[in-house]
């Protein structure tokens, strides 16, 4: 064969065949092993993943340094820095404002039951984005915190501005977050003004939409969507985004809304992993207490 590189034969054809069979069996095991038994494979690869995580962290800081250097040399340094700071501040304030609005609404509705509103403090772990998922098919980012830091699968990830996504995989020192813009992510959302619930899901075009909004809901453009607190990993009232457009086709049983996420996923550098969201049971007990209170008021 012209131009083909033929390496020196180090192993006999019998050994090669054994190697091929072993790897073929390993491949079959990968597919046939039930999901709950795949922890074995995960454990085997864990040390290797930890080793690979070291150059990832180094390269991430190198990339960040290069990017910062590039920005400082070739752009209007001060303006860019101020703009970045102001942008972050605006995002943070929007997040805070939204939290306050949500709390004010809750306080109005649950005034008589304020003793039930002892919010379990949300415990979070700060993490840095050190890379992107290795494939174009999933929109994910790699964080520099993993199992050693108490991070587990299905924990929610947010910034001070709002929801980012959910942890789908962990190694000892890293974790993978599937972003909210991925079609495989679904979070239960709540339209803050109308209190209607729906499922917030990503689209292949990296947009976000809210499905299954009740047909009679008066939801409109500009309405704020927050987490309902019933999805694993997120407390109630974390900002998701704003309604940009309502889609209501004739014959459809539900309305669908396009949501503009509040977080800029391309420029995100630090995130918070929610390790202890408000327990759902507490929210249910508040709702039950509210119902009984309303019944009492009606009786009076």
């Amino acid at each position: 064969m012209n131009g083909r590189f033929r390496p020196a034969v180090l192993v006999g054809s019998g050994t090669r065949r054994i190697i091929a069979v072993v790897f073929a069996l390993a491949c079959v095991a990968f597919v046939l092993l039930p999901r709950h038994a795949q922890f074995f494979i995960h454990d085997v690869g864990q040390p290797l993943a930890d080793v690979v995580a070291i150059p990832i962290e180094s390269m991430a800081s190198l990339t960040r340094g290069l990017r910062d250097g590039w920005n400082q040399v070739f752009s209007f340094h001060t303006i860019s820095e101020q703009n970045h700071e102001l942008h972050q501040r605006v995002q943070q304030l929007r997040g805070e404002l939204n939290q306050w609005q949500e709390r004010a609404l809750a306080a109005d509705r649950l005034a008589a039951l304020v003793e039930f509103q002892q919010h379990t403090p949300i415990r979070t772990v700060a993490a840095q984005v050190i890379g992107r998922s290795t494939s174009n098919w999933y929109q994910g980012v790699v964080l520099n915190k993993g199992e050693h830091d108490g991070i587990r699968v299905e924990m929610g990830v947010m910034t001070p501005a709002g929801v980012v996504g959910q942890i789908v995989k962990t190694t000892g020192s890293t974790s993978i977050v599937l972003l909210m813009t991925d079609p495989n992510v679904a979070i239960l959302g709540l339209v803050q003004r109308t209190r209607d619930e729906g499922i917030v899901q990503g689209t292949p075009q990296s947009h976000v939409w809210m499905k299954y909004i009740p047909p009679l809901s008066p939801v409109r453009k500009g309405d704020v969507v927050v987490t309902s607190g019933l999805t694993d990993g997120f407390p109630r009232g974390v900002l998701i985004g704003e309604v940009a457009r309502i889609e209501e086709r004739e014959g459809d049983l539900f309305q669908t809304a396009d949501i503009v996420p509040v977080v800029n996923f391309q420029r995100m550098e630090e995130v918070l992993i929610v390790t202890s969201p408000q327990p759902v049971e507490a929210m249910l007990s508040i709702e039950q207490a509210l119902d009984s209170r309303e019944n009492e008021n009606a009786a009076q």
Partner: protein
Amino acid sequence: MKRLASIPFMLLLVPVQVTLLPSLSLFGIRPDLCLVAACLVGLFAGRVRGGVLGFFLGFVQDFFFAGTLWLNTLTKAAVGYLSGVVAKNVSTTAWYSAFFSMLVFSVASGTVFLLVARQGMDMGVVFHGISAVLFPQAVLDGLVSLVAHWIFSRWMGHAPSG
């Protein structure tokens, strides 16, 4: 010696894929360096080496991948092995056969990813995946394989033929 030197280089492919490539993506699409490496090693060094290297690269890649655990392991191992089979049956491993092999394997591997990642979603989503991810990535993979083929040929002491 060259083969030993290639081990750390191969292990660095995943960190490069995770950290550097997102900054160099074209319209949000990145080439899959591990797929290109598995394919070229299969073409140059035979099916067993291609399959084994593809298996290991895919295995490591799976830990930094937001999807199913075995997807990269299996596709890269298969691509490495099959490209070795192709090399055995074609008359040359010149740049054009590397490019077209890469194109075909990237489309095949992308189809597996498409079926898993967009499972149960409507046809519009599937067609979007084909036009916006599968084909653009295959072209990028092909182009990267051309560059890698040139480097590989020089490194292994063989000028690309054809």
